[in-house]
Each structure stands twice: as C-alpha cells, then as structure tokens.
C-alpha cells in the first residue's frame, strides 16, 4: 500500500499488513503519520490500484470491493451517522444488496446499545439530538452489531470518560477474540492504559511491529 497526503507528501509506501485471527492489534504512530489514511486504504476507500487484498485466502480484486468492505469494515473517525433515528443508524447496513443476513431486529439493536452503556438511549431518538460521546458509542455499537470479519476502528474511544472508554474497549477486545474475527484499532492522542494483543507503529512512512 502507498499513500500521499493532501500536499503530495509521501505518507507511506510499500506498506504491508497482516492480521491474524482472534487478535486485537493497536496501530500507533505520531499524529499526521497517516494512521487514518492507512485504515482507509485497508478499507478500500482510497485509490485502490496497486493494493492487493486477501481475506481467508480469498483475493479481493476490482469488482469485489463492496463485498470486501462489508467484511473488512471501517468505523471511521469522528463517528459519522446518517440522518434519521438511532435505530436506522444501527440497521441501514443490513439493507444493502450484498448482505445475505436477515434484517437486524429491535431486540438485537437494543442489546448492541446496552453493550456499550447506552441503555437509556431509545431506538427512535433522532440521531441529531444525541451527544458527541453517545454518537461515538452508537457508531461502535453499529460496527459490533454488523459483526465484520475484520473491524477497523479509528479512534473509537474519543470523547469518552475513562469508565465508558474501558467498557467500549472491552467490547472491542471481545469481538477480536471470537473465532474468525480480528480488530485493528487506532486510539486517539493521549489515551493511556489500553493494550491489545499486538502493536504496529507507523513511523516515517514505514510500518513496523512494536
């Protein structure tokens, strides 16, 4: 993988990344080193030529990237949401064509919210009225409910107080440790005390085991 920033400076080049099943790996590096860009590149949201993607031995080339994203899913920075209700924000991925799963029901949506400490957030609340911290946990609940093979989480704990951050990190670790699952996670600046099963550092355009 390779990428440049907005000014054309090289962020990383020739980067390779392998995730083993059942592991939660933290991606670290100084700010501006391209961690988010790397996650977006893995999620196939950036220019895709020259990148080869493989999952469970299956190659994902041109024409298959929507399916790739459904399995290797990015929970993006700043927890974006769609206009509508909380429930719709949990449910919309299940309406896409590539999905062969049943539409998720209200009970599983409720359980997903409860899991990240949002017991008191009703499913029919307009998402425009939820707070920043709630929005971050909603985005995480959606990603966990979606249950991707690989979850790429970009600063999932931003804006959360320590108790809620550890609750959410616990959920991420649970997801990673299940059979056939893995998580690659970037934590926000200054967050301490969380460790995964492995660490990767992105420094000066190179990706190395830390």
């Amino acid at each position, binding site marked *: 993988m390779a990428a440049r920033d907005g000014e054309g400076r090289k962020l990383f080049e020739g980067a390779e990344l392998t995730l083993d099943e059942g592991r939660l790996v933290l991606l670290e590096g100084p700010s501006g080193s391209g961690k988010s860009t790397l996650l977006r590149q893995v999620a196939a*949201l950036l220019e895709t030529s020259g990148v080869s993607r493989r999952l469970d031995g299956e190659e994902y080339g041109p024409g298959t990237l*929507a*399916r790739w994203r459904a399995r290797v*899913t990015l929970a993006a920075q700043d927890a*974006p949401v769609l206009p509508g209700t909380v429930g719709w924000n949990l449910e919309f991925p299940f309406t*896409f064509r590539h999905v062969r799963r049943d539409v998720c029901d209200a009970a599983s949506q409720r359980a997903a919210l409860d899991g990240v400490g949002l017991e008191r957030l009703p499913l029919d609340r307009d998402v425009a009225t939820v707070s920043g911290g709630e929005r971050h946990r909603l985005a995480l609940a959606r990603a966990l409910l979606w249950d991707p093979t690989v979850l790429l989480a970009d600063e999932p704990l931003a804006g959360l107080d320590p108790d809620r951050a550890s609750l959410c990190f616990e959920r991420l670790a649970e997801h990673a440790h299940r059979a056939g699952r893995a998580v690659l996670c970037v934590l926000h600046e200054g967050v301490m005390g969380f460790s995964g099963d492995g660490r990767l550092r992105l420094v000066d355009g190179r990706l190395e085991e830390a």
Partner: protein
Amino acid sequence: MGPLIHLQPVDLVVSTTLVIGAGVISVLLRLGIGRRLAVAAVRTVIQLGLIGLVLEKIFALRRAAPVVVLVLLMIFFAGREAVQRTGRRYPSVYLDAWLAMAVSCLAVGGVVTQVVVGVHPWFDPQYVIPLLGMILGNSLTGIALGLDRFLEHLAVRRAEVELRLAFGATRGEALRPALRDAMRTGMIPILNSMAAAGIVSLPGMMTGQILAGSPPLQAVAYQVVVMFMIAAAVATGAMLVVLAAGRRLMDADGVLHLDRLVAR
C-alpha cells in the same frame, strides 16, 4: 375577435419609460442595482432584437439545416449556462451537461413535435423552435439545480456517503440519497409551476397564445402539453447529468474521487 394589435416603435419607447421608472426607484432607495438594471435592459433589447432578426430569416427560408443549427446552438449555450450556475465543477462537467441536455431535449422535443403536435414539415420552425426553446430553458434550470445539489451533497455530506460505502454499499446504494436529493431539487420549479398553473398565474406560453389570438381552450391544450413535456425533459435531463457526475466522481468499486471536484 378583433384583428391583432401590432406594436409600433413608439409603444416600445413608452415601455422604456416603465423600466426607467424602476431605475428611478432603485436610485431613490439606493438599492444599488440601477446599473445592473440598465445593463439588463440593454441586453434584453439587443439579444431579443438579434434573435428576432434570426427567427425572421429562418422562418422565411423554411429549410431544415438552419433550424437544426439553431437548435444545436441553443443546446450548446443552455449546457454552458447550466454549468456556470453550479457552485462546484469537475473536469468533464461541460460534456456531461451537454449530453444530458441534448439527449433529454431531443428525445422529449422529438416526441412532442413529431408525435403529439405532428408538425409538417418535420422541422417547421414556427413550432420546433419555440417548443425546444421552452424545453431547453426549463431543462437548464433543472440540470443546474440538480447538478449543483448533487455535487454539494457529495462535498458536504461526504462522511455519510463513505459511511455507507464502509458497510458494503455498492456505488448505486452509496449515491442513491444524493441522487434523490438532487432530483427533488431539480424538479421543484416545474412541480411548483404545475401546481400553481391557472390558479396563481397564467403560464407565459398560454398568455402569449391568447394575446396572439388563439381560443383559450386551444391555448390551454398547448399549455398542458408544454407542462408535461417540460416535466419529462427536466426529469430526464437532471437524472442523466447526475448519473454521469456520479460515475465521474465515484469509480465502479465505490472509491470517491472528490479531488476531481473544485469549488468556484
């Protein structure tokens, strides 16, 4: 019905005092549009005068080639104007606007002139030019509004588009909300005029036909045809240009190329 009243040069001079009156109001109230009003008034006279001369000539010739050339020129300027009204652009935006304009206007205009009205000869300028002119004028608004809204949606609500992509949406699924948003915006003017037609306003073409001596019911029949034709042309034109823009800005695998989009 009495004979038609023809306008004489002196009538135009009298009407000039009306626009000068508007200018005086602007100066008195310091609206700051006196100069623009003057320029617009002069442009109106020159542009309409020129097209009047051209139309007299083309009507007198009664040959296909000049009509076709004029229609193509009108499509060219309409497409250009549509793009100039949008707040953002991408490299091949003019080509897309021209194609959308040409396909929608020629298809709808073709059906109306050849099948509904059934003009003879097929290029009869008395029917073809005003009908296509009305289609183009409205298509222009629809294409400009729809395209502007679509590009704005992609730029401003990029995070939502990428959120859908990130969870496995195909290109069509990721762009559908932007497309619907754009189509609704593009269709609003024609929907409004269809809803208000006859109650709030007498549409311009119908008014013109009545002034020219047509029986009102005949003018109404034409106006209904024109409204439907405009709705069809706006819907097709806006849809085509937005679909084209979507394909330029997001490749088949759903990667957004918003670096191709520049704000003005």
